């Protein structure tokens, strides 16, 4: 059966073979050792578009989808509203099917959209310059750590135990390969002499705000850089890293108009100070003029990157998450100055309402103090995994089990997508689940 994706017919192929001067396509594969040529490939037999859509729709239905279920999971991926114009615009083939903009004359769309993304990340974070995006928040943190080591010439990265454990895992994997070390620090202890960077996440893994400026002072006093890990929705209301002494600011961009998609594609946000620009990884789009004096955009400072500097590159990153960066820029433009603040406030008030109600339930307490944003920890009367099983039976996806950190603790997340009815239903379900 002919393929819809291969236009050439058998007649076409015969003509091509004649021009090339071979009798069959097999001759073109003569360099492959004969013993290994044309192996058997055991894959499911081909199917049509319609048959596969039916099969895959059934497969998708075997997943519980937030939206159909009330979802109280956060911990690095968040159920926020995706304005319709975001998928509408990035679904345009001109954005979705084009390549990395190395030929600027025919990629001004991608380039300008990326410049907008860079600009809006700077506006949001209060930093001087942002790159075109990394893979995700966790690898952005890891690359920030490597950057701090390059800049200072030192080999240790300090972190607190309030850092997202998965981000810590990724850090560990990246740093170990280069013989760099991780040092656990608390606020009080002095930093080791070899500290290149100090990582502070705010809101932290458990949802609470940290004192980033104190950490920045400590880092700078030790000659180290402050790496601030932020949440972009929280920055709708909270003071941004650029005003708190951050040298590098990184975060997860998924909440900015990207669906959760079982973990990806997301986009890592990465911003820094002008003085560190040349050590920043990732692509950068700059504004300039063409030969007639028209404004235009172009990839710039490419000498930092792998295709030029090779083994001395700031990073090996090539393909990143360009389309997701464009989506985030559209989200930030759509919500804008007032809208993002409103979203943040909705998250804040709904989360605090939920916390307050749960805190009055018998057997449940709120073990942590201090300001929090949209996530908070509850102490349950039974192991969280049991509570979650009962919640799931009621059509509720409960919070993350963090009982490895705090006894019987669960990390709950509430966003602007969570209705009051869903919160009240959660409270009732928790009461029942805790009762047994």
């Amino acid at each position, binding site marked *: 059966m002919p393929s819809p994706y*291969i236009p*050439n017919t058998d007649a076409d192929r015969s003509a091509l073979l004649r021009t*090339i001067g071979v009798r069959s396509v097999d*001759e073109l594969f003569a*360099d492959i050792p004969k013993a290994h*040529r044309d192996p*058997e490939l055991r894959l499911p*037999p*081909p199917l049509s578009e319609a048959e*596969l859509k039916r099969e895959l729709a059934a497969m998708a239905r075997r997943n*519980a989808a937030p*939206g*159909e279920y009330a*979802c109280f999971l956060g911990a690095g*991926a968040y159920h926020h509203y995706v304005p319709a114009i975001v998928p509408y615009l990035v679904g345009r*083939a001109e954005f*979705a*099917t*084009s390549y990395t*903009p190395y*030929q*600027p*004359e*025919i*990629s*001004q769309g991608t380039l*300008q959209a990326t410049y907008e993304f860079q600009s809006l990340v700077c506006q949001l974070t209060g930093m*001087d310059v942002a790159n*075109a*995006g990394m893979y*995700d928040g966790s690898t952005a943190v890891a690359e920030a750590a490597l950057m701090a080591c390059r800049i200072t010439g030192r080999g240790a990265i300090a972190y607190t135990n309030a850092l997202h454990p998965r981000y810590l895992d990724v850090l560990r*994997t990246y740093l170990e390969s*280069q013989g760099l070390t991780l040092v656990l620090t608390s606020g009080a202890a002095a930093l080791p002499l070899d500290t290149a960077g100090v990582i502070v996440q705010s809101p932290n893994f458990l949802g609470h705000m940290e004192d980033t400026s104190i950490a920045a002072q400590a880092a700078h006093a030790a000659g180290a850089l402050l790496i601030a890990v932020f949440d972009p929705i929280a920055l*709708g209301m*909270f*003071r941004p890293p650029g005003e708190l002494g951050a040298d590098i600011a990184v975060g997860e961009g998924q909440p900015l108009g990207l669906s*959760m998609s079982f*973990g*990806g594609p997301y986009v890592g946000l990465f911003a820094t100070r002008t003085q560190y620009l040349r050590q920043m990884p990732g692509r950068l789009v*700059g*504004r300039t*003029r063409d030969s007639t004096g*028209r404004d235009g955009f172009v990839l*710039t400072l490419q000498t930092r990157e*792998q295709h030029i500097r*090779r*083994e001395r590159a700031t990073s090996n990153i090539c*393909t990143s*998450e*360009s389309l*997701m960066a*464009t989506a985030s820029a559209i989200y*930030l*433009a*759509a919500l804008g*100055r007032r*809208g993002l603040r*409103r979203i943040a406030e909705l998250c804040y008030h709904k989360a605090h309402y939920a916390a307050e109600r749960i805190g009055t339930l018998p057997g449940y307490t709120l073990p942590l103090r201090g300001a929090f944003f949209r996530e908070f920890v509850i102490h349950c009367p039974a192991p969280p995994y049991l509570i979650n099983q009962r919640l799931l039976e009621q059509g509720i*996806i409960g919070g993350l089990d963090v009982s490895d950190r705090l006894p019987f603790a669960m990390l709950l997340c509430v966003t602007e997508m969570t209705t009051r009815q869903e*919160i009240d239903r959660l409270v009732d379900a928790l009461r029942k689940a805790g009762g047994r």
Partner: protein
Amino acid sequence: MPGLERRPLLMDQSKPGRTGCTVPALDVPESPLPPSALLRDDLPLPEVSERDIVSYFHRLSQLNYSVDEGFYPLGSCTMKYNPKWHEEVARLPGFAQAHPLQPEESVQGALQMMYEMQEMLAEILGMRTASLCPMAGAHGELTGIMMVRAYHVSRGDRGRTTILVPDSAHGTNPATAAMCGFRVVAVPSDARGNMDIAALQAALGPDVAGLMITLPSTLGLFDPHIVEITEQVHRAGGLVYGDGANLNAILGKVKLGALGFDVVHTNLHKTFTTPHGGGGPGSGPVATGDRLTPFLPIPHVARRRDERGERYEFTRPEKSIGRIGAFQGNFGMLVRAYCYIRQLGAPGLREVAENAVLNANYVLARLKDAYHLPYDRRCMHEVILSASRQKAKGVRALDIAKRLIDYGFHPPTMYFPLIVDEALMIEPTETESVETLDAFVDAMLSIAREVEQDPDVVRGAPHKAPITRLDEATAARKPDLRWQPRD
């Protein structure tokens, strides 16, 4: 004409009181806000109406050339057509809305897809299994070389501090090796474009952790001595990493595992046609043989069969290098690649390779008289020409590439690999018809004639793009990387 009157940047379009999205009302009582010291004063984002945002990005998109518009022969990028039904599947709520940390029993559909994807990629590559965690090809390379390092460390062999790469290697290869703390040594290619075996032998020793090699190479050539190469490396105690960027040439025609590769990455956004997005998202799964499978990153997807039936779950390989990302890879891209492999099956994948290689050789045959062919042999899925003949007339590969824009084509890859002077690397892919190939070839031949008769028209190209050549020197000297308020 789009481009001549571009709208101002969003921050410059902004006017107080405009908004691009409605926000729900608060349905719970307000709680006291945190101390004002924690709160920001202003939020300096734009205020633009939805209508104007749409118009703005709509116009921007029209300044892009894309695969949907036409021929995009970027060598080593495999810019093939992206089937549209994949997008519908990726949007299904069960796939698009699932939270990555949901209890496993609530995402069995997603886990099943991932498991089958692992298996299918392993089968295609002739390896034992695959990890779907890497979010791009370079991320897959990093994962693979980290595993090579972990392998040697686990055997107490800490003297292996060098990685060998061919002199034609893509820049990510040495960058990756350096990110893993290795020293990089380049192995030269011979006059036929194959790896110089004697030079390889000389470079191998107890300090070599492994060899990174692309097959077909970045020159678009299949090294017929590949088995000897992998055997040599193994005999010296090293491992072989396969950069699978050029897999489109050999799908179903040979299994890399059978040729001695220990670990291979693939680019789903190349071979398996997930849309390139203007620079991502991509996905770079790594497949491993016996030696490296225990070192795969977490999580890996396993299938368990018990009395309840079949279930899928995340597992940790016994000597895992750990996490390389917060979650489990770019699942949304896996969905699209899964659709592709299921629709094509083994016969369809084989057809992809055969047609890709056929198309590239046709372009070679028709252009080799007008342009210098640095390696006079059959190519695989891409052909490298050199503009060295044209350089003698004062016209460079860059100029030819820009002139192709005037003919309505995206230029091929230029100046890569570095070992070819004035390189133009053309990868037609299998999704292009002979009519398109002929139109492209005719344009290249016309440009070759222009070089002889009217070189200025080539040197001054493009004449028909939304914008002419940009001042990249000033962009680098005086970087303007973000919107600034006008004073």
